[in-house]
């Protein structure tokens, strides 16, 4: 049986060791699974992946990391709202080249647009301080309260701080009506976290809370993504109901989770004190993978591979054309 024939059944760890798995995307996952430079001759004889010219910086998707160590208290219990607002403003200014939060948000949001903000409530929820900072910017643009919905799964918050809760309905296509019928603009606010089943659960994973009728057996469902370590998670963001609406992805990295998840073991929470922001959610997820992997290695003092490898990031790029998964082709800017 040839290697190509075997690949029909998926990759193995050895493919990552060789750099032949996902190699064309420059993943560097070989390092994640413990590959060393000390390769035996047979493997060294393998032809290397064909090098591709690096794009100019202007052509690369930009991912902005804003960090403020004082944004969250040492015990992780208190968040400084001004620091979060400052980070959000700095990140969006860098991302857009505009001179204020409102002007930056105006890149994607017009005053009368209906705006859906997808937060996460599960286990490591999006910090309200980040939602507040985003609301402030949208309010400056003039988005009416009636045109603002912040939600996860079946419940949503209509408007700003004094808004009311509403039940979220789902369309016949199993996408929530916020996304499929109502919103002109969707803003994604996931957490920075590892995930037991998919490796990490950040931007692409957060949209699971925008659809219904999913189950882990993938039986009789509209979005059968659970198999193969959730490799096909990108099928949600690629659904036509979302097309042209997913404008901005802001990862809440104030306190990240680097092992397990979604159930929290506090040994694996850490104060990253940052936001990771971009318009290309695949690129943002790829940068977040790098952040989480570095923290894991730091924690153990050696390579601590993220298991399973979060293949859904590569698959989202390659199969669903949702963005850039090659770290070398992503412009990462820290502010």
């Amino acid at each position, binding site marked *: 049986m040839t290697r190509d024939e075997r690949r029909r059944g998926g990759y193995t760890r050895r493919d990552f060791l060789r750099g032949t798995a996902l190699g064309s995307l420059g993943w560097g996952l070989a390092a994640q699974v413990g590959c060393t430079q000390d390769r035996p001759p047979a493997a060294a004889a393998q032809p290397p992946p064909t090098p591709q010219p690096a794009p100019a910086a202007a052509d690369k998707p930009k991912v902005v990391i804003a960090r403020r160590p004082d944004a969250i208290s040492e015990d992780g219990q208190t968040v400084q709202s001004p620091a979060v607002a400052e980070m959000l403003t700095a990140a969006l200014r860098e991302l857009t080249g505009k001179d204020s939060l409102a002007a930056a948000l105006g890149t994607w949001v017009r005053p009368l647009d209906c705006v859906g903000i997808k937060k996460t409530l599960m286990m*490591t929820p999006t910090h309200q301080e980040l939602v507040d900072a985003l609301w402030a910017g949208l309010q400056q643009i003039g988005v009416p309260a009636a045109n603002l919905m912040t939600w996860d799964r079946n419940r949503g918050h209509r408007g700003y701080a004094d808004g009311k809760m509403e039940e979220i309905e789902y369309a016949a296509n199993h996408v929530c009506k916020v996304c499929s019928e109502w919103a002109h603009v969707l803003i994604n606010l996931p*957490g920075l976290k590892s*995930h037991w*089943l998919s490796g990490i659960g950040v931007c692409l994973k957060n949209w699971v809370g925008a659809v219904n009728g999913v189950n882990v057996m993938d039986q009789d469902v509209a979005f059968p993504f659970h198999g193969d370590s959730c490799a096909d998670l990108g099928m949600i963001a690629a659904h036509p109901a979302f097309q042209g609406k997913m404008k901005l992805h802001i990862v809440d990295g104030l306190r990240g989770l680097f092992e397990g998840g979604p159930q929290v073991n506090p040994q694996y929470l850490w104060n990253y004190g940052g936001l990771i922001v971009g318009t290309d959610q695949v690129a943002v997820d790829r940068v977040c993978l790098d952040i989480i992997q570095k923290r894991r290695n730091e924690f153990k003092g050696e390579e601590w591979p993220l298991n399973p490898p979060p293949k859904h990031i590569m698959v989202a790029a390659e199969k669903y054309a949702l963005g850039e998964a090659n770290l070398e082709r992503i412009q990462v800017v820290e502010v």
Partner: protein
Amino acid sequence: MAGPTDAMVLLLTVAALSMAGCRATPEEASAAGQSAPSASAPTEDPADAQFRQAIKTAGLEASGDLAHYSRQTLYEFMDGGAERYLGYTFEALTTGGARRPDGEAFRVELYRFERSADAYGLWSTDANGEHPPVGQRAAYGYGLVQMWQGPYVARVYHEKYRDSTRETVLALGAALVQAIGEEGELPPLLARFPAEGRESDPVFFHLHTALNHLYYLGDANLLGLGAETDAALASYRRGEHRAKLLLVQYPTAEAAGTARQGFVREYLERTPTEHAVLTRLEDGKWAGAAAWNEPAPAADGAVLCIVLDATDRLVASDLIGRQPSGPARAGRRGGSRP
């Protein structure tokens, strides 16, 4: 018992939100709570009495009602994470709250499994940390203790994960263990791991998804893991050398043989033979496999021994080169789960 009250629903939601240091708006708490009624149980659950007794023994006061989840509703408690539990013979979860006189709040989650071995298995997948003498096994860190006791796994934690509450968390855990009472046996497979150089308790599991979280071997289920296989993974350090040993217990020798051949062919990329196979991989480490048929009276089963990430050939060879001795597979109850 009666269905959950609004106050309980609010408490649970606020507790979940506070785990990561978030403040929840009343609207959010109310919102998340509205999906909870299906989590309630119409009748008294056996765990309720254990809960109440434990909280009283620990000198705490119960806060809110208890909530119950089944295999079917566990997703409502941890969307996206239930799969980890459903990979074992998980049966039921009871959750509740407790409060200290000074107002510090604690949460208790009590997971019941059909088999004690599976309760151990679930516990073993996240056993890092300090190991206080609470229950049959326990792991503590940052205000959370996770314990195995008989067919139960318990998680007891301070809502804000403050280590300063360690004594209370452990006292509540000990009281819960006392209320549970019954002890359980370790998975028989664990007795087959060589003791020399073993760094910690083996992690016990059944499914391919669990293996891929512990050690990513490949996308395909190369080893034919499933509900009827018992598997365990342990790390070894012998001198300066390290290795991992994976043992899989199959119900038939045929199943073990098929898995061994598949692993040798697909992963080691060697021609399967009747002998143990050992090969050096691209990272310079050794991997190999050998299958051993069970002696009578359990002559229909077999154990597959796989060594991974071995930094030394001799260590690898030793780990798979001897038939692992020990008791046969545990009896099964309850059909095809997980």
